[in-house]
Structures are given as structure tokens and as C-alpha cells.
């Protein structure tokens, strides 16, 4: 510890006022505070002691909650690869090939994202903030395993600059940074993020009858052609892939980290137990999606509308979005009542977009971004209600 402290101290004067790298002071501080919690003390007046928690620890808690999704995702990328190519493989093989696909995406996301942040920290002279610690891992997990790395880099730069830094950095953003990265790709390079991109195949030939379709694609197809969705699903080349419990486990093609509802729920337990994620939002997203799904079941129509409502909870990125994206405290509603409304509407909108709008089979991304924009409006009314209560009290 002493050695490291000395090393930092020995270069410190370069970064201080008047030093030759004075401008890079935020980068120096940023690195030092990764190793050492800073020696800052409380102000002379006011609270003389402070809670042990800080933003670094909070963000790191989210990283820990993401680990089950990450590990399972790596395995699943490999697993999907081997069943699509018909090769028998061990757990380790599957995990390795998944890692070979996933780790570079993560490295690019962190590398490019932090690089962009550092540039802004130097230009704006603001400290390196922790927000990207989480965004940097969320971005790879919502990407398909086949995504070109340069696109990951582009999307990350876009998200960090347009999503966050233009507003003033962590805590100031309106939209969820990671989802913005994905939305950027969705509209800029649609062919690499929709269609048959969810299974990594490489150069290996596929088995007879293979199709990369997700259950949402079957749904969209059924809605468009007025065919029976469940029949199409039953005829999927890999039998049983789209059974409810299999989908709950997440053993199906999809974005790297978001296929498994079970892993998301483990993450949710970590977030809720540590108080980092709002259980109100998580629960209300699920409730909203189920309610909308049930409503469609009642109204009927095409076979996608009649898909059992509980299927909506385990397909696509709903669970991942509910647990890790919707709960982003900055872009979500800030009031407690607002959180219920915000989450519920995300669930409702997700299913609405999924089922009724065939152009975008995955609804959660757009639903969350949409509600990010509306969260301040929801809060506005909750806050107004609070003000009115105070006024009313005055006249009584």
C-alpha cells in the first residue's frame, strides 16, 4: 500500500496546478481513487461524520448483480453456437467460445467509453465519474453476439457523448446510456442488430433446418400472415427451445446477457437486497407487461395477441430491462409514486410495441427510452400534488 501511495505521490506534482500535465489532473485523481478511497474529511460545519457508502460502491454493486447474467450469457452464446452447428461440446468449450465472442465486446465498450469520458474530463475539468462503470458492462450485454466491434465502439461513443456528457455527466442524463447505444445501432445499422444475428455461427456450417429466429420473430410473422404462432413455435428446429421454462432459464438465442429471466431475477435479488435498485420499478414493469398481455389475451385477434401473457415476462429483454435498465435512478422517475407509474407503463408499452408494431419486435428498449423521456412529466405531477397538499393545509 505504501509503495503504491509513493508511486502516486512521486508523479503527483506533474498533475497539480503548474505541473506539466496539470490538465490531466482528473485522470490522475480518477486512477488514484480506484486504488485508494480519498483522504477527504467532512466540512467544518454540518455533518461531521459520513455514511460509508459512496457512488463507487453503489455502482460496483450493480456490476456484481450483473455477473450471473454475464457468465450465463457467455455460456449461452457458446451453447447456441454448438447446437446450431450440431457439434457436441463440453461446458468449457461452450464457455470458451462465448468468452471469445463476448470479452472483446466488453473490452471495446470499456476502452472506448472510458476513453471518451477521459477526454471530456480533461476538457471540462470534471472528475472521472462512476456512471460508466455500469454502462460499460450493460452495453455488451444488450448486444447480439455477432455484432461487429467497430459498431460497438461507435455506439458507445454516441451514447457517452450524446446521452450523457452533453448534459453534464453522470447524474444529469435524461436517457439510459446503455440503451441509447443499442438504439443508435438499431436505427443506424439495422441489419446487424435485427434478423438472424442472435446466434453466433462463425464459419461452421449449420445443421439442417436451422433457423436463427427468436420467438418474437415467430410472433411478428404470425401477426403479419395471420398464421398460428404456437404452431410455428412448436415446429421450431430445436424442439422445446421455446417452452416456457426453457425460456425462463434463457437457453435460447438473443442478446448476450439478456436471455435468462432466472439470472436477471438473481440480479434483481442482489439489487433489491442492497437497496441499490428500486423494487417498485422492477415489480411494476412485470405487472404492467403481464396486465397488457392479459388484456390482449382477452381481446384476442391474431395468434400473437393470444400468446399466454406470462410468456411476455420471459421472452426478449423484458426481465433484463426491468431489472437493470429501468432501475437506473437517474433516468427513471425520481418520486416513489412516480416509480410505480413509470415501471407499469414500461411494462405496458413493451408488450404493446412487441405485439402491435411488427417493425420493432423487441419493445423493451423503446419502451424504456420512451418512459425515460416521460419520467420528468410523471414526477412533475407527483411533485405538484405535494405542493398542493402544502397549500391546502395552509387554508384549512
Amino acid at each position, binding site marked *: *500500500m505504501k509503495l*503504491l*501511495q509513493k508511486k502516486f505521490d512521486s508523479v503527483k506534482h506533474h498533475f497539480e496546478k503548474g505541473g506539466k500535465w496539470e490538465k490531466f489532473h482528473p485522470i490522475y485523481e480518477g486512477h488514484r*481513487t480506484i*486504488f*485508494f*478511497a*480519498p*483522504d*477527504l*474529511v*467532512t*466540512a*467544518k*460545519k*454540518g*455533518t*461531521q*461524520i*459520513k*455514511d*460509508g*457508502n*459512496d*457512488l*463507487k*460502491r*453503489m455502482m*460496483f*454493486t450493480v456490476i*456484481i448483480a450483473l455477473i450471473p447474467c454475464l457468465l450465463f450469457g457467455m455460456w449461452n452464446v457458446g451453447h447456441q453456437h454448438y447446437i446450431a452447428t450440431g457439434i457436441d461440446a463440453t461446458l468449457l468449450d461452450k464457455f470458451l467460445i462465448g468468452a471469445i465472442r463476448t470479452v472483446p465486446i466488453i473490452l471495446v465498450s470499456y476502452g472506448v467509453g472510458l476513453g471518451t469520458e477521459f477526454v471530456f474530463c480533461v476538457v471540462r475539468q470534471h*472528475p472521472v*465519474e*462512476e*456512471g460508466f462503470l455500469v454502462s460499460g458492462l450493460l452495453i455488451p450485454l444488450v448486444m447480439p453476439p455477432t455484432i461487429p466491434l467497430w459498431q460497438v465502439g461507435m455506439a458507445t461513443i454516441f451514447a457517452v457523448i450524446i446521452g450523457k456528457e452533453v448534459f*453534464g*455527466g*453522470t*447524474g*444529469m442524463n435524461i436517457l439510459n446510456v446503455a440503451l441509447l447505444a443499442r438504439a443508435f445501432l438499431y436505427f443506424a445499422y439495422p441489419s446487424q442488430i435485427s434478423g438472424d444475428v442472435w446466434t453466433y455461427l462463425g464459419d461452421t456450417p449449420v445443421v439442417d433446418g436451422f433457423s436463427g429466429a427468436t420467438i418474437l420473430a415467430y410472433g411478428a410473422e404470425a401477426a403479419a400472415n395471420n398464421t398460428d404462432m404456437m404452431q410455428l413455435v412448436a415446429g421450431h428446429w430445436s424442439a422445446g427451445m421455446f417452452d416456457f421454462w426453457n425460456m425462463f432459464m434463457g437457453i435460447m438465442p438473443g442478446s448476450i446477457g439478456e436471455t435468462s429471466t432466472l439470472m436477471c431475477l438473481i440480479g434483481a435479488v442482489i439489487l433489491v*437486497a*442492497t*437497496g*441499490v435498485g*428500486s423494487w417498485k420499478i422492477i415489480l411494476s414493469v412485470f405487472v404492467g407487461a403481464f396486465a397488457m398481455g392479459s388484456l390482449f389475451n382477452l381481446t384476442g385477434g391474431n395468434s400473437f395477441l393470444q400468446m399466454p401473457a406470462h410468456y411476455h415476462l420471459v421472452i426478449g429483454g423484458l426481465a433484463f430491462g426491468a431489472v437493470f435498465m429501468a432501475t437506473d*435512478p*437517474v433516468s*427513471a422517475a*425520481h*418520486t*416513489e409514486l412516480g*416509480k410505480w407509474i413509470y415501471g407499469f407503463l414500461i411494462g405496458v408499452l413493451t408488450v404493446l410495441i412487441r405485439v402491435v408494431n411488427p417493425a420493432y419486435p423487441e419493445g423493451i428498449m423503446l419502451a424504456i427510452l420512451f418512459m425515460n423521456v416521460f419520467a420528468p412529466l410523471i414526477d412533475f405531477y407527483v*411533485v405538484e400534488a*405535494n*405542493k398542493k*397538499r*402544502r*397549500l391546502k*393545509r*395552509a387554508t384549512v
Partner: protein
Amino acid sequence: MSQTIKLNKGFTINLAGKAENKISETDHPETFAIKPAEFNHLTTAKMLVSEGDNVKAGTPIFFEKTMEDVVFCAPVSGEIAEIKRGEKRKVMEIRILADKQVEFEKSKAYSNSDLSNLDREALQDILTKGGVWPNIVQRPYGCVANPSDTPKSIFISAFDSNPQAPDYGFVFDGCEQYFQAGVNVLKKFTSGRVHLNTNLNGEVSPLFAKAENVEHNKISGLHPAGNVGVQIHHIDPVNKGDIVWTLAPQGVIEIGKLLLEGVYDTSKLVAVTGSQIENPSYVKTYTGACLNKLISGNVKEGDNRFISGNVLTGESVGEDGYLSFYHQQITVIPEGKYEELFGWITPTTKKLSFHKAFGLLSFLGGSNKEYVLDTNQHGEHRNFVVTGEFEKVLPMDILPNYLFKAILAEDFDDMEALGIYELVEEDVALCEFIDVSKHNLQEILREGIELIKHG
């Protein structure tokens, strides 16, 4: 119409070094000081004495330009040693070299029956000239009350729920008649009631339990249940244009003593607390005492912080600093100026936290475990990120996040509409303690109050 109020929000900070209920003998401090700056919104202190003058306890030493009737008096007898001035010759501190034995200015002593015959004007004259008036603090703004106002009610909190707070039952033992006289006097200043709020879950000393002429309310809950602002919010809230006065029991007792004995007697038992104190106990002294004699020989080795008041709302004054006018507690804790290797992620049970983020295990310790905390901030300042947490430690129907942002944006309408009139610094002290982004929220609130008062 006594009320019982049960609060289910808050956070009690349980620290090592609570004062034992005994009085330690100490030397009489050599110097005392009164600091005009610690009374909020005192704009210009006009001096009535000069350096070298001899004063007695109760001799007026300055008055406030905007409230000429209210004089601030010397707490002890002695010689005016120094009048410290700051920018634009603003008076910062008036230091008194104290006599060994305190001599008092004598004014007329009243009997209880005489008191009941005095009207408000006469009483106001006695209180403002006698030095006890600054004990009356008004809400909104948390400043010394203006004698020309008539408050809609007066609040006295009969317990202190702050960390290591003095035990009111112990420190005010034997002051029953003064307290009662003080309450009787205060009653004449309000058109409404005098509320005396006791702790539903604690032992209520007879001083409070037997007090007459007051509304007895019972409050239960974690800290900040003892904060008078929280009690006002639930019993008789401050709306725009309303004025409520608040006093600590010590202030009520000083008023009682002035009337019954004819002296400005600020003698009080002060709790000497904190993990760096060898034998935490009580010492007897007067308002504005210099800390050093009161704690000498009782402080553990190390780099320490000497605080007038408690760890949530106090002020670091240094070993030779002075006890604030409103404080009845001295706290000494270790400074925390050190770097900690991976301190932001290492699991620990030693750091107290309201949160349960990864590795913060203090919630496993239960509420009986006593913590030793230093002044380390545990992280750097950041923008607001977390939502929904401040509300958990502020048992009022107020949205603190929005209020703080309104203050930072200097949005006067929002500040007013979001309830700034109801708050003073101590009410948001817990928010400041738990804030993940390490804002100095008490300072922010004070800036907001200044803005709204002075525009």
C-alpha cells in the same frame, strides 16, 4: 388536544462515547466567547462594550441593528479581552477573560404570583433586556425571534435524539420551578398553544411530565423524532406567513431563572462525548465556554476533531474553540484524513451505513452496536444520482431531492412550494449523512433560506 405521533422513518446513529450520568469536576474555563455569526440572520452586531471593559454575567455586550430591543449579554463576569472583527469590520467573536467567581447583574426577581400579573409588554421588556431572548428561535428561517411577532404556537422538544445527545432528564434535574415559570411566561406570547413534546418510548423526567400550562404530545420513532421541526410538521405545520417559535428546555429554564432570581444565569450541564474522550460524562459550565479546560486530561491521543454540538449538526471549533450559544454538548472524534486501499469496495462492519450496498455490513450489527466513526468522507463529491433515500430519513411530507435542486437552481417559487419554511439545517442532517454523492446539504439549505429571506 394532546397528540401521539408515531414516526416510522429515520435512522438512529449509535456511537461509542455517550456521556455517563455523572458530573466531572473541571476547572472554570479562562475564557468565554460569544459569536454573533452563529445567530442566523444577524446582520450587524452593534457593540455596547469595548476591549478592556469589565462586565458581569448579564451585562449587555451588543445588540442587533435590525432588532434594537434584543440585547446579547455576557454569560460570565470578567474583562472583554478581544473583539475579533472580520471583513468590513463585522464582529466575529467577543472574548471575555473570565473571573474565577461569576458575578451577576441583578435585576428584579418576581414571585410566581407576581409573574402571572405581568402582561406581555412587560415580560418582553424583561426578556429582551435580560439576555435570554436569543433562546427563542423562530421558524421559518431558524433565526432569533422578532419580539414584535406573535407566533401561532410555541414548541419545546423535551428530548434530543441526536447521536450521543445529553440526557435531558439528568441535565435538567432540579430545574422544575424555573422550567414551569419559563413556560408560563412563554404562554403569554402566543395566541395558540405551547407544545411540549416528549419521547413516547423513553422515560419522561418529572420536569416535563408534571409541567402545566402546556400541551403534552408524545412522539415515537428513530432520530430525527426529537427534532422540533419534525414535531411542528406533524402537530402545527408552518405555512407561508406563519410563525412558530421554538426553544430548547435550557432556554426555557434560563427565562425562568431570569424572572424568579433576577439573574442571567446560563450555567448548564454540558455532555462531553465522543469516542476520543476517556471518560464521557457531564461538566458544569456557562454558555460560550472555551473547550480546553472542560476536556483537559480527558482526551485520547491522536489527531482529533473537537466539535461544539453533536456529530450531525455541530461545528468543528478546535481544542481551544468555544461552545456555541445553543449547544449543550461537546464531541471529540478522530479525524479521518487518510487514504484507504480499496476502501470503496472492501467489505466492512466498521463503517456505519444506512445503505446496504455491497460490503456495507453494518446492518447486521443490530441497533445496539456502538460505532466509532471518524471524519473521513468515504468518497468524493458527485452529482445527485440516488433517488428515494432522503425521504427515508426525513419523516415529513417533503421531497428533499426536489427542494435541494430548487435551491441550487435558485427557484424561489419552488423552494417556497416545496416546504423550505418548515426546515432548518438539523432537519436535513441525516440526509447529509446518508448522501451517497456527499453534498453538504445543510449548507445548501441555509443558502436557500438566506435567499428566500433576503431575496
